[in-house]
């Protein structure tokens, strides 16, 4: 391929006190594209993002990676000072709960000014003028009044807009959005997702969209990786994942949430619960919950295998499909 990915991760593993939280994560994110990282709680999606950003405390977390290449540089080999410059200026992050990420005793405008002064060395007056533009850019009504308000005076949706304004103040190349709309009401969620989409088009930034919500991913992501118990178990284009899911876990996830525009009789479920890091089974991690479990699944720990162009899954079944395809694929 001619164009190198903006972010390329291989063999990323994180452990905490001997427990492996994340194992062998790999992903490629292209400039201007959105990559959805999907999984249930404890699947390791946020930990992966924190590890990429080098935000995990090295005394507690052990992070290993074959490579984490961002815009041509190896992030793990950057000095502390250099890494700090990359965070904020080139990679930004937004989180689920803006209230905990914003400083409660500082007016929101000041918090943008702070970012601009640190990362772009602007003087106070210019930074304030720019901060006001940022608030208008994220469509905050009456921005000239809101700029001097404190986070508690704003609604959840407005606070998330302020977070986005801070995150894009330095026009980053990559935005990591960790459950950006999970705490928001559905009408507000639609507004924030649309805002991110527009800003992406204007700035050309790559977005790593971390979420548990498949509906959000389907609408906004170009590519999707599904995580389960610390590993990526399937990845592909959004169409491949949503229309031709290969892994039984992905298939189960897609069916478990009822559609809003059609009736279903009984909700298909995935039996059991997600295993904790210390109780992960030896063979396939999803084996004990899998409807297609076979003897061999107890003994093999499948890794991501290519199935179709860009579509990969960590399951012995897709290969089986190819092998005895006519038997298992309906109306093939």
């Amino acid at each position, binding site marked *: 391929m001619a164009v190198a990915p903006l972010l390329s991760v291989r063999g990323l593993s994180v452990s905490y006190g001997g427990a492996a939280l994340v194992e062998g994560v790999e992903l490629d994110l292209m400039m201007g594209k959105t990559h959805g990282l999907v999984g249930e709680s404890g699947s390791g999606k946020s930990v992966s993002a924190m590890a990429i950003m080098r935000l995990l405390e090295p005394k507690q977390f052990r992070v290993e990676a074959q490579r984490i290449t961002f815009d041509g540089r190896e992030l793990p080999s950057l000095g502390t000072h250099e890494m700090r410059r990359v965070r904020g200026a080139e990679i930004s992050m937004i989180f689920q709960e803006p209230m905990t990420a914003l400083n409660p005793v500082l007016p929101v405008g000041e918090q943008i000014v702070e970012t601009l002064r640190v990362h772009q060395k602007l003087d106070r007056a210019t930074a304030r003028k720019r901060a006001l533009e940022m608030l208008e850019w994220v469509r905050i009504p009456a921005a000239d009044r809101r700029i001097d308000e404190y986070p508690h005076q704003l609604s959840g949706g407005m606070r998330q807009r302020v977070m986005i304004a801070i995150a894009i103040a330095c026009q980053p190349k990559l935005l990591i959005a960790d459950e950006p709309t999970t705490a928001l009401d559905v*009408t507000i969620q639609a507004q924030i997702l*649309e805002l991110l989409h527009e800003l992406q088009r204007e700035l050309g930034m790559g977005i790593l969209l971390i979420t548990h919500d498949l509906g959000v991913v389907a609408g906004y992501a170009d590519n999707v990786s599904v995580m389960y118990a610390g590993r990526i178990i399937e990845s592909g284009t959004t*169409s491949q994942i949503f*229309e031709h899911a290969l892994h039984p876990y992905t298939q189960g996830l897609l069916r478990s949430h*009822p559609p809003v525009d059609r009736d279903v009789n009984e909700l298909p479920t995935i039996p059991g*619960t997600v295993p904790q890091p210390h109780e992960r089974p030896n063979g396939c991690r999803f084996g004990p919950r899998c409807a297609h479990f076979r003897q061999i699944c107890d003994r093999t720990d499948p890794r991501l295998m290519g199935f179709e162009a860009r579509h990969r899954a960590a399951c012995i079944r897709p290969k089986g499909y190819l092998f005895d395809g006519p038997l298992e694929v309906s109306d093939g």
Partner: protein
Amino acid sequence: MDDRAIPFLRVSNLTKHFQVGRGGLLGRNRSVVRAVDNVSFSIARGETLAVVGESGCGKTTLGRLVLRLIEADSGQIEIAGTEIRGLDHRAMQEFRRRVQIVIQDPFGSLNPRMLIGQAIMEPLDIHSVGTAKARRARLAELLDLVGLPQSFAARFPHQLSGGQRQRVGIARALALETDLLICDEAVSALDVSVQAQIVNLLQKLKHERQLTYLFISHDMAIVRHIADHVAVMYLGEIVEIAPKAQLFAHPAHPYTQALLKSVPRARVHERPELAIKGDIPSPIDPPSGCRFHTRCPHVMGICRSTPPARTTVGPDHSANCHLLAQALPAAKGQTA
């Protein structure tokens, strides 16, 4: 019309306002949160009424009012034909055997130092039901009913996953002769694979035990799956109420229409429609006239000044919107 029985729960003109703020020396700066305003609905036995709405719409307060965990300012709450707002403490205690609640965070509602078995039996102890032996038998039955292994009785809440804790919450709510179960965002904190399990469990229990549900939720997809009737709340008021199929096929109120359009569809590259602009106003001093007028795409002059009356738009289907009152012949527009 559906009049096969007396409703099991009938709520009429229920209102609860909270005073907020210091009020200053003469109390002139007092603000009022109109948490629940003149709300009326009924649920037949064995049916599920879902109450949907966004933050601050009053749906949680409504659930607590029905349980009398908070006292209403005015209105009636009838359960199986008895007006419960007038009941004294002792009589109310009896009623509480029949009305229980399951809340969103099962970890917060379970005592971390109490064994699961004790937690499930606690209602039986409080209401002095049966002998010790009978209670143990009942515990075994309840664990079975909600699909938990018997060994869980000897575990502590922190040893359970979120879904398992929610099963404990449900077992506990069903320990007595529960008829009406109020589920307040009961599946919202759960991962989707576990959420489906709990939704199916609630469905199964409803059919097996003829339970009546007041199902409070913000998730339109779950509501479509679980409800028989749906009430949509906005800033303290019910703006639309209808049988489930009607509401999803022919939403009459612009807010209901917007809510439905905002839900992501889980279809590739299909982005939810930006149905309404602006923020949800504060429930403190809500907008005048129709409370939705600040966000409504069809706002008219009258909407800013006059609250719309409840208009019947179909069998058991009504909505509060001036557009509907205009569109229908005057005779059909009636207040309920």
